[in-house]
């Protein structure tokens, strides 16, 4: 009798310990999740990269290459591709001198186009009807753009230094120097201004103005994103042990149901990711060809294609990036070599808009239904509401991950309920 009493007490204690452990674990888990919110995106991107690489690893296994060696080869390819990408990007990105010229050209051209369109070319012109209707609003927009492209005092000084030739770079062409002077006039400043005078003195002395270091912000980004390759490697090495561990937590009654549900969700998300990757590649290719056709330099068209391909993964806002870059280039372009006879620097921006619209239509009408296919068979309203909700709750990460998440939830719930019914659980 005493023994049975002790046993019951022990069992009660055991239950309390289990329950308390579970509650504490859940509470700590939620706290850690909230605290490490910034790490969610690198973690998920690393997991997705590992997921995408899994079929490649299976392919190497089929060819008789051991798993370890396969991972080693994959990592080699990953680092090689990253190095190539970084080299290509750094070649494409303008250096300090080119940045100054680009800003100067952009500032000059945007004000020139504004004056042309608004009928403000003559010094005493009062503007056309468009100016009277939209003038004030457009001026505000241009002022906002000016903040980004206007050279500050330090940059003006640097421009002066480069205009004479600096760091083995040739002097800045006269045409752009004239733009620079016109820009200064536009800002109601003359070259004889005190600041410019100071800068000229600095230029003659060869002094470089002080620039703020971006090192700390770059380090902050690296600090967070360093997690991504670790997650990628860890998940590739894992070989199903994590899945087994979680399956181990599932009660026997739901064992076969969960295996089936996980498999179906896995299948759906795999289809979605393969489809999206192919669609991204096709969109990138379409943009490159389109921009080459309307007269962009091949190198620039390929770069915009690459960016467009990557940003296609961002729902709704994907086409904004190629459109933005294309329009910026069309504003400063002076020589257009298009095989289309009617294209010139003046109407290049129309070509950009037409190109973006055509690619968008092809994406919606062909790539989306035929390439991404039924894996994302979601109602547009669900997608839009989900995207806005996701972006409000989790910002950029929410925007990026909402559709795959909806795919997972949809497949999970539909399969789960079907299976629970089939197993007579509900």
């Amino acid at each position, binding site marked *: 009798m005493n023994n049975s009493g002790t046993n019951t007490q022990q*069992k009660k204690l055991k*239950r309390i310990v*289990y329950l308390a452990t579970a509650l504490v674990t859940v509470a700590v888990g939620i706290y850690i999740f909230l605290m490490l919110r910034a790490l969610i995106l690198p973690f998920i991107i690393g997991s997705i990269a590992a997921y995408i690489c899994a079929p490649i690893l*299976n392919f190497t*296994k*089929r060819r008789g290459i051991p798993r370890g060696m396969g991972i080693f080869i994959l990592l080699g390819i990953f680092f090689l591709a990253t190095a190539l990408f970084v080299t290509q990007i750094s070649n494409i990105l303008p250096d300090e001198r080119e940045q100054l010229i680009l800003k100067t050209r952009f500032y000059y051209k945007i004000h020139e186009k504004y004056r042309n369109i608004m009928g403000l070319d003559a010094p005493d012109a009062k503007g056309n009807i468009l100016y009277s209707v939209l003038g004030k609003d457009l001026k505000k927009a241009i002022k906002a753009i000016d903040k980004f492209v206007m050279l500050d005092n330090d940059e003006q000084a640097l421009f002066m230094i480069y205009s004479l030739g600096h760091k083995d770079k040739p002097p800045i062409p006269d045409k752009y120097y004239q733009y620079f002077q016109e820009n200064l006039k536009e800002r109601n400043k003359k070259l004889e201004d005190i600041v410019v005078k100071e800068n000229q003195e600095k230029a003659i002395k060869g002094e470089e103005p002080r620039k703020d270091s971006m090192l700390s912000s770059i380090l902050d980004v690296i600090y967070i994103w360093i997690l991504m390759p670790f997650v990628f490697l860890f998940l590739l090495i894992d*070989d*199903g042990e994590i899945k*087994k561990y979680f*399956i*181990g*937590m*599932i*009660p*026997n*009654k739901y*064992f*076969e*149901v969960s*295996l*089936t549900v996980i*498999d179906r969700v896995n299948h759906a998300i795999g289809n979605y990711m393969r489809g999206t990757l192919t669609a991204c590649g096709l969109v990138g290719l379409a943009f490159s060809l389109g921009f080459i056709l309307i007269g962009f330099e091949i190198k620039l068209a390929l770069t915009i294609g690459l960016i467009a391909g990557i940003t296609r993964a961002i729902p709704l806002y994907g086409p904004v990036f190629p459109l933005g870059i294309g329009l910026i280039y069309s504003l400063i372009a002076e020589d257009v070599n298009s095989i289309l006879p009617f294209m010139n620097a003046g109407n290049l921006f129309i070509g950009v808009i037409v190109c973006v619209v055509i690619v968008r239509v092809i994406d919606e009408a062909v790539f989306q239904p035929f390439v991404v296919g039924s894996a994302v068979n979601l109602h547009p309203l669900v997608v839009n509401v989900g995207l806005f909700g996701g972006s409000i709750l989790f910002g950029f990460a929410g925007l990026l991950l909402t559709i795959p998440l909806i795919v997972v939830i949809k497949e999970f719930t539909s399969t789960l309920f079907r*299976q629970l019914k*089939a*197993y*007579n659980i509900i």
Partner: protein
Amino acid sequence: MEDTDKKINTFWGNIFSSRKDSDSDSDTDILRKCLIFQKLSRRELKKIANIIYERKYSAGEHLFEKGQPGAAMFILKKGLIKVVATDRDGGEMELADLQAEDFLGELALLDDSPRSASARAIEDTEALAFFREDLYRLLDTNPDIASKIFKELAIIIGQRLKASNEQLLYITVGKDKRP
């Protein structure tokens, strides 16, 4: 109360069971004795051991029930299982008692058609579950292993069909005219 406690223990046991290399080795030994995997080399058996799930069942707990869609085959590691079906009057009819190294539910490896009988643990049992979709994936990653398994499965099903035919003939024609 006793039953609930056992289930809780089994649940936590599944979570905190630490799989060591020795476990994997003993799983490989169990798998080798299973007819379906008998043609596989030790290396191939290790690959199978990596994709199987270890489950623990308390006495009285079902591995699967008649009519449920099958998703996995079970190989018994320890314990005792009773395979039962319902007769015409709704009563329980015992079909077989299975013990360590026996396997059951192998038809689930072909499709998800409903289980033809129920399997219940008579005592605390440990089983290895082999999931159908993992076998299908093996067709992609290790087609040589998958083809050996499917061949053995076909032989076993063929033998069972032959035995069923003989039994049917015995029932319908009679003992004396049995071939």
